[in-house]
Structure formats: C-alpha cells, structure tokens
C-alpha cells in the first residue's frame, strides 16, 4: 500500500490561497512530479502574476518572477541560456491567455522546451474576480455584473485546442482536480508535460480547470462540483501527445 506524505519539494510554509482553492492541489501535484522525475536540482520555475505570485514561498527550487503575462518569454530566455535546466511556468488564465497570449502562443509555436501550467479558474482571482478570456457566457464577474455577454465579449478562448494545432507542442492536455480520479489523471498529464521537455520533444502544456470558491461565491464543495459545468465548455482530455 502506498503512503501519502508531504512532498519534499514543498517548503513548509502554509499556502495563502483561500479555503478550497484548487491552486493548492495543483501545487502539490507539481511538487510530486518534480520529485518523482528527480529534477528538483535543475528545476527553474517562473512565477507569474496572479494568485500564485508567491510560488517561491512554496517550492524549494529556483524561481524567478516575470511581469504579468511574460512568463513564457522569461522561461524561453532561461531555457535557451541554460538548456540543462528543467524550466516551467505556472500561470493563471489571465496571465497566460489574456495579457500574455502572444508570448504563450509564440513559445508554444517555437516548440520551446519548457512546460507551461495554466490554472484556468475563469476569472482574475488575484484582483478580485473580474472577467477573464475563459469566463463562461452568462457568468457574472465584477466587470460583467450582468454576466458575460457573448455579443460584447465573444466566447471563451479555448487555449488547449489552439495549442493542439501547433507542431511545436509535444504535449497538451486539459485536466481538472475536482475528483480523486481526475487528480490522478492530472498528475500523469503533468508528468508527460515535463517529459516533453526532458526528452527534448517540444513544448509541454497542462491546463487545470480550477475552482475559485471565493470569486465564484460558492463553498469549497460546491465550487468543486461546478468544475463539472466548466468541462462542457472546456472538455478534458489530452489534445496532443508526442511524448
């Protein structure tokens, strides 16, 4: 039988996330994968601007902060400078797909040997719950008080589906962590997204559908359940796998 213990790559600082926030689950999985792949000593993480901006408090690896949206560009620079590093970014949907879309897509198109993790919680969590490119039609946010109107803002951006079309992308998946089974699948996807770079095949991408109880105004359990709704717009699955 397998024991479940606190991952070694995590520091012992408590997460600052709100109760029930899925950022924490994604953190733990990331720590486990880094540990299991044995790359803690050559990991280089890029902390982005969003609820996860304190990434460096929690991971005992080298971590650099990048301006909002530029994580993939900073990661590109680090990886090109020192290809022996295992470079990853940890970004929100706003960071990756709104302000940083150009940097994200171009890094993927170039097939940068980096792993990008996008936490898609359909809002700007850090700044208090505004519209994001992945907000669902009709979803109320502080900047769409009547709900996102597709006539004004169009439809949610499906990043995994776009990346799936890029030859430079070696692994691309969308996962969720709102059930135990999905948590296990998410970990496997994350592992492969790292193998994509470790085996020098190309860009690795994992998008986490992630609950934001506070801005969704739901308790932790109901927020986790709501992630199921999200999967209608954002289907789970592996969209490209060349690992």
């Amino acid at each position: 039988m397998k024991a479940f213990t606190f991952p070694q790559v995590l520091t012992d600082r408590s997460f600052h996330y709100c109760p029930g926030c899925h950022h924490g689950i994604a953190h733990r999985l990331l720590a486990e994968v880094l540990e299991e792949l044995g790359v803690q000593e050559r990991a280089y993480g890029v902390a982005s601007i969003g609820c996860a901006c304190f990434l460096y408090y929690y991971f005992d690896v080298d971590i650099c902060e990048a301006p909002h949206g530029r994580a993939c560009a900073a990661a590109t620079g680090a990886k090109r400078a020192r290809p022996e590093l295992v470079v990853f970014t940890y970004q929100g949907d706003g960071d990756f797909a709104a302000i940083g879309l150009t940097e994200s897509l171009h890094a993927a198109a170039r097939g940068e040997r980096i792993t990008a993790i996008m936490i898609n919680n359909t809002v700007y969590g850090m700044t208090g719950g505004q519209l994001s490119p992945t907000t669902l039609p009709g979803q109320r946010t502080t900047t769409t008080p009547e709900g996102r109107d597709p006539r004004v803002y169009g439809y949610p951006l499906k990043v995994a589906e776009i990346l799936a079309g890029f030859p430079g992308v070696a692994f691309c998946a969308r996962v969720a962590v709102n059930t135990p089974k999905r948590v296990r699948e998410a970990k496997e996807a994350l592992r492969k997204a790292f193998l994509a770079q470790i085996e020098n095949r190309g860009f690795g991408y994992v998008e986490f559908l992630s609950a934001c109880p506070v801005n969704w105004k739901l308790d932790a359990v109901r927020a986790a359940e709501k992630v199921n709704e999200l999967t209608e717009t954002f289907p789970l699955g592996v969209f490209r796998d060349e690992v």
Partner: protein
Amino acid sequence: MARLKVRVAFPERCKGCGLCVHFCPKKVLSVGNQRNLQGYKVVEIVSPDKCTGCGVCYLMCPDVVLEVV
C-alpha cells in the same frame, strides 16, 4: 504490514474547507470547532477506525494538511 491510516499532519495548514470530508468514502473526517492560528476551523478525525488508507482525502486536500501513513 499494518493498514495505513490518515493523520492530520499539519493542522496549522488546514482551512476547514471540507473537501476531504466531502470526498472521504468512509466518512472518517469532519471539520471541528477548534480554530487554528490562521483562524480557520480545523479538520478532525472522527472515525479513525473506518479509515481504509485510500488516500482520497490526501488527494483532494488543497492545503496538504493530511498524510496517510
């Protein structure tokens, strides 16, 4: 080999979100009335015997509070 069991390894990390409680298939856990220094009510093991060591609570806890050892 002895059965693995859940333990509240880091109560100070707990935020009382209840996800572990919700997902535990054996109803082993509950969020109690005790608060930790952060001000959150902390998870408690109410039926330790029922625990199968399945690890679901560990998987679902966003704050890495629990261990199954």
